């Protein structure tokens, strides 16, 4: 891991390096919350209960924003899943005093739980408000703790966590591919949300690979990025709803 972490600026510019990214087809998203629950299950995201949820203390790593357009009877609602955008120029990263969040060479905005001391500065700096804080000790009444994914740590109270693009799955696939001496194939890595999404609104892949499904979709004329004008260079690309690609 240390090798993966210590990367010079020159190495970073290596063209062959992956940039993991996600394409979210808003035309397919039905707002069904499968990704939300899948994420809770995969990443041991705690549940906070009604009282704390009402105080905006809930901890979803991915949320489906619902926006109304128009008034009754010509009213429409649109869904937009929002998760960590894994910005290339992430505003959350430089503000952390202890380097608890940084950019991996593969384009992930990584959060080092063990390093975090809970200044919540990254959360304030994030324009997408996707960083969630452990407001309380996580509570898993017995035997619910047996549902926990052993590949993902359970976070302590007082630290920030957020979507990791299921880095544990990425690593597993990469290690397995390395072990058998082959390249990671497109679509082989599927974060829990992508895996579960019934209408396949979420597509994950290497944006630097022009052949990958994600990068092909990212070139669609429906493509846009959330708050692109801020210049954060997100790795999550949305495809506008209500239109075709052609």
């Amino acid at each position, binding site marked *: 891991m240390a090798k993966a972490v210590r990367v010079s600026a020159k190495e970073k510019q290596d063209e062959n390096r992956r940039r993991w990214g996600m394409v979210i087809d808003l035309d397919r998203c039905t707002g069904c919350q499968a990704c939300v629950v899948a994420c809770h299950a995969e990443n041991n995201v705690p549940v906070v209960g*009604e009282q704390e949820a009402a105080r905006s203390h809930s901890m979803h790593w991915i949320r489906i924003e619902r926006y109304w357009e128009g008034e009754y009877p010509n009213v429409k609602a649109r869904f937009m899943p929002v998760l960590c955008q894994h910005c290339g120029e992430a505003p959350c990263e430089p503000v952390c005093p202890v380097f608890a969040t940084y950019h991996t060479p593969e384009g992930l905005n990584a959060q080092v739980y063990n390093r975090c001391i809970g200044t919540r500065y990254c959360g304030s700096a994030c324009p997408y408000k996707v960083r969630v804080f452990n407001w309380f000790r996580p509570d898993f009444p017995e035997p619910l703790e047996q549902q926990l994914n052993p590949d993902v740590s359970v976070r302590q109270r007082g630290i920030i966590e957020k979507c990791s693009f299921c880095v544990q799955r990425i690593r597993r696939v990469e290690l397995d591919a390395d072990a058998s001496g082959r390249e990671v*194939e497109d679509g082989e890595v599927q974060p829990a949300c992508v895996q579960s999404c019934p209408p396949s609104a979420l597509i994950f892949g290497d944006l630097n690979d022009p052949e990958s499904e994600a990068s092909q979709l990212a070139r669609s004329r429906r493509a846009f990025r959330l708050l692109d004008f801020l210049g954060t260079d997100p790795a999550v690309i949305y495809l506008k709803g209500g239109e075709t690609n052609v």
Partner: protein
Amino acid sequence: MGKEISRRTFLKVAAGAATASGLIPQVRRIALEPFVRPPEEELPGRATWFASTCRQCPAGCGIIVRVINGRARKIEGNPNHPLNHGKLCARGQAGLQVLYNPDRLHNAVRQSGGRGSRIFSPIPWSEALDELTAALQSLRDPQALAVLAGQPSDHLYTILASFLEVVGAPPAVIFDLHTALDGRAECASLSSRWFGEHQLPIYDLAHAQVVFSFGANLLETWMSPVAQSVAYGQMRQSRLGGRGVFVQFEPRLSATGASADEWIPVPPGTEGIIALALGRIIVEENLGRAGKHSDHAHLYRNVSVADAAQACGLPVEELRRLAHLFAETDRPLAIPGGQLTGHTNSKQAMDAVMALNVIMRRLGRHGGVFTPQPVPAERFASPAPTSNLTEILDLVERMRSGDIEIFLIHGANPIYELPAWVGFKEALEEVPLVISFSPFVDETAVQADLILPDHTYLEGWGYQVVSPGADRPIISGQQPVTQPLHDTRSTADILLSLASRLGGAVARALPWEDEAGFLEESSAQLHDNSISTYDARTPAGFWSLWRQHGGWWSKRAIKREPEAVGMPKGAMAVPAAAFQGDKGTYPFHLMPYSSLTLSDGRGANQPWLQEAPDPMTTARWNTWIEINPESARSLAIKDNDMVRVTSAYGSLQAAVVVYPGIRPDTVAIPTGQGHSDYGRFATTRGANVMDLLTPSPAEQGNKFAFCATRVRIEKVGQVKPLARLEDLDGEGRESIR
């Protein structure tokens, strides 16, 4: 592994598995082994995947469960399964919290303080079985044994049906609220009425160009939402370009309606009238490329478009536009279901919608309507039916009059799920012996003498004949993925032990040692079948592959064209829907709808589902009532105000969600909350909308007319901030003021 499995899904599965083949069959009996002496398939820290079937709703999606060190850790869709193609909905993902629920019963219990006392004392299984056997033996009349089950796994249904038949008891009544709100019984009745089939029709959503859905929330809970969502994704953005159009007709904008291109807010109960009017316009103007409509003109003889336009509050021009939109395409599709079936005119309305498919020649066509191919084996040919309200009312009546001496209940929670007016709880009190098989102490189990908890579905065996199916016959196999957590026992095994204890004809009719033996024998019926996706030399090998694949299915798509043998012959008419409650006193239509996450309330004990926001209101953990902004303004109520909702039958309190997507004359309340029992996560929150429903008079046909109640709304002066994910100051709009 069929060709449909892409390489990546195969790799993904293989990567997690300890052995070279993708999925590992669960061995039939696993001795309890400590962690340091792992069973041979278990490597510490290495994941094993088991294929099984999701039982969170009756759809029967295939799942694979990641098991590490003997404990289930994650549920995912089975990528090989032809129904859900590796996808899974929120409820399916939350299945782990059924298994690991902290409020499960740990063993068989007797309610020692009397029914409703909630004082339980554990009893050994032998004693429970003795008692049950004795009770059955002392039964004077086998007709005094009644069983109510909620969409049981098909293997349990088969065993149960044989058991009841051989002891001479009436067949089990099958009811649960989830399928009732889907209108499953109505849809089945439509299928048998029109096509002479007892299986539900299949709508080829993926390939339709224009989809008109009349009340079916097919992306949320209706029938097989994952399969329909997968198809919806293909309809929207097929990789070849082209994009289907989707129009939803319903009084309240559901999440499905929100995904539609157009939402037509029809007055409750007029969906069928609109369908008729559309048909009339199509026939009259001879729209579309499907040939002449003269064959069907007689159906619409008595339809007046102008009257229909008035009834549904839409201009005639709008109806014409919709008719053109529907007809002037190659592959239109009309789907009836869901809350359409909650009206008194549902039969005629369903006919009217299905007729649109017929006049556009959509039966058996690409992107049209199909009937499923039955599984080619006798054992699987007759999956569990769904009872209608008449059968339930009949059961209640017999209970009330003291005709029932033993009442067994499995997988259903009628005290919570049935409308309060049915009086199930009161009727139950007349039954001398009530035995529940619920793994949880729910509202009905609390009224039982004995609770003999079944395994949860991740610990138990079973199979489910998928219906409505995908494009081929499918049996989703269910197998234990982990040791039973507690001292629970499979209900099917209990029936088999009962049979052997009773002896005689009963034992002969149910000769299996246990349910796994029954399953193995059943699977053998498909051994050597030519359409099977896998085959083995021996039945034992076949049974092993069955468990490895998570069931059985055909290797290729088999779609059957339905024959509309029973379609209406004469002119169709849809009567005005009747509503209970005076319009002056009760100005609003009440629309109970199935919660996307909690479904009919069975999800309420799973914190992941409680915490997952409702997609439209983003509310969590409670009950709310949706009111049009205009109506809210006229009543001077705001978001989060508590209101009392009163119908002619009952009343409840709920917090208000001012909801732009609902008709001003309608209010909507989701199901699922308001539990008085059912564990720590479910209780003490919200209200049960079923308490409000008002009975329809018998002359309107004993339908479960859940949309036919009228209510009034009064402010109670309290404020209850709902746990909404969305911030209300944003007013739900993306653009800022």
